[in-house]
């Protein structure tokens, strides 16, 4: 069981990651803060509690793998990797600049710790399936984690991969749905509803856990439950708030792919101030 200090530490870590997201997109003048902030607590839990990994040895064969299928949320991944020690935190200031190791969307060839290229939505879950399959073939101890967006779930390939994972009983695969209810053109309900995602994945043969994606107790319990689930992949349907943690970004479609201005950056950092 986690102690309250564990949880408090994760919350503090998530806050640092949120600050990085604001700063790096603010400095870059572009990027995707909204979906990075909604994913921040889950990604923090993965890198600072759930996953076995060695930041000094990014290709350690027995590491757990994380696939950010919703690649536009690269800032949250880059911040978690930097905070973990894959590269210096200073590198975050180079996001999206010419020559940077931190590309606009994840690039496995340029960034230590990035497991697969993503950015074209809908593809990461399939790659995660392939990794899980390879791990099982090799009787390897590692697990595969993936995160998809709810808008991303409108891509057909997500459902192809979902069928595949259940058919091949990939119980070493856990996916998180960042269910923030927003995509670029508006609310999913208005653009293209994915309706009851839990029922969809359950009917596809997955074990489904519904959580509040900003509650670390629930997040950690869900990953634990996934680990104990046999013969089925697990989908964690995480209710989240897009832009979470920054008052004027929360639930705002406009901050999907828009960086904060200097003024907004200041205000956001004040809201996310660490003690």
């Amino acid at each position: 069981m986690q102690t309250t200090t564990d949880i408090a530490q994760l919350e503090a870590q998530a806050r640092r990651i949120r600050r990085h997201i604001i700063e790096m997109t603010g400095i870059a003048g572009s990027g995707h803060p909204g979906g990075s902030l909604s994913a921040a607590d889950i990604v923090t839990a993965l890198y600072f509690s759930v996953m076995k990994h060695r930041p000094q040895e990014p290709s350690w064969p027995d590491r757990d793998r994380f696939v950010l299928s919703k690649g536009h949320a690269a800032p949250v991944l880059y911040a978690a990797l930097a905070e973990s020690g894959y590269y210096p935190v200073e590198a975050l200031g180079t996001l999206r600049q010419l020559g940077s190791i931190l590309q606009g969307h994840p690039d496995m060839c340029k960034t230590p710790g990035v497991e697969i290229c993503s950015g074209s939505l809908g593809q990461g879950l399939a790659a995660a399936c392939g990794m899980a399959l390879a791990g099982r073939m090799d009787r390897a101890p590692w697990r595969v984690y993936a995160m998809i967006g709810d808008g991303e779930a409108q891509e057909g390939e997500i459902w192809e991969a979902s069928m595949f994972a259940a058919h091949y009983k990939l119980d070493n695969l856990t996916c998180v749905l960042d269910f923030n209810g927003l995509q670029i053109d508006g609310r999913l309900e208005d653009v293209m509803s994915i309706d009851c995602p839990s029922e969809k994945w359950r009917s596809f043969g997955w074990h489904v856990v519904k959580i509040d994606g900003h509650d670390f107790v629930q997040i950690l319990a869900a990953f634990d439950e996934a680990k104990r689930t046999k013969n089925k992949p697990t989908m964690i349907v995480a209710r989240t708030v897009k832009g979470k943690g920054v008052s004027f970004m929360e639930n705002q479609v406009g901050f999907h792919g828009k960086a904060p201005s200097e003024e907004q950056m200041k205000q956001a950092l004040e809201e996310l101030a660490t003690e």
Partner: protein
Amino acid sequence: MAEKRATREAYGAVLIELAKAGRDVVALDADLASSTTTAKFGAEFPDRFFNVGVAEQNMIGVAAGLAASGKIAYTGSFAVFATGRAFDQIRNTVCYGNLNVKICPTHAGLTVGPDGASHQALEDIALMRSLPNMRVIVPADYYEAAAALRAAADIDGPVFVRLGRAAVPVVYDESHTFDLGKADVVAEGGDVTIAACGIMVEVALRARDLLAADGVSAEVINVSSVKPIDAEALVASAAKTGHVVTAEEHTIQGGLGGAIAEVLSEQLPTPMLRVGVRDMFGTSGPADELLIEYGLTPANIAEAARKLLD
């Protein structure tokens, strides 16, 4: 009559050979395993074969994940679907990540026959050739297909090997090897160069005989490695003959003819004519009749050569 064999026959056979040799190969197929012959591999190595169902995009994605985890991932399907349906997956996940995925679809070109245009890939070489990190191989016959499929396992990164459905005459024998980036001068000549790939290599050899009867000496080059292309060999031959005809079972836009035009226009501008499908879809019919209908015969190549020499 020369021996006839379909290049696709080599696929399952080589996969079995590679697995028996201890290579860490896996094969994926999208409900076409019996047609592509990966089913043969699946029957011998069920733990290394995965059918994804009719889901080509997912097939490429799963292959990418397998490759990222150390496997040599071969994929099967028809060339239309493998390259067209899953193009974005090949581009953004496989090639951008330089992953060890082999895209070896069968049923490329007009010789698919009666299934018609929807199933006759005539743009797959152009599509694959446009992608950074992708190697593009168009084997001339069964033996070269086997050699190329074997060689692909030793290349660390994405490889496209174009295979066909129909039994076609062989050009080589068991002893043939494949060298990525090397063109093979299959017959020497001094008046005109015929650079071909795939089934058109054998057709080019017959065109050479037609031309010889007229006293024209044609050099036939098999450019099975379309990318990387053997610019040196092509320039050397063009320098010798001064005339180049290209021949491919593919659209003349962006395929072998396009690739050679790019090389020669920069390095040694040479009068050229391209034999291939001229900005059209295919159609249903028997393979041999389609080659006549679309102008992919020895006579068509010979005619192009004569036109150049006039």
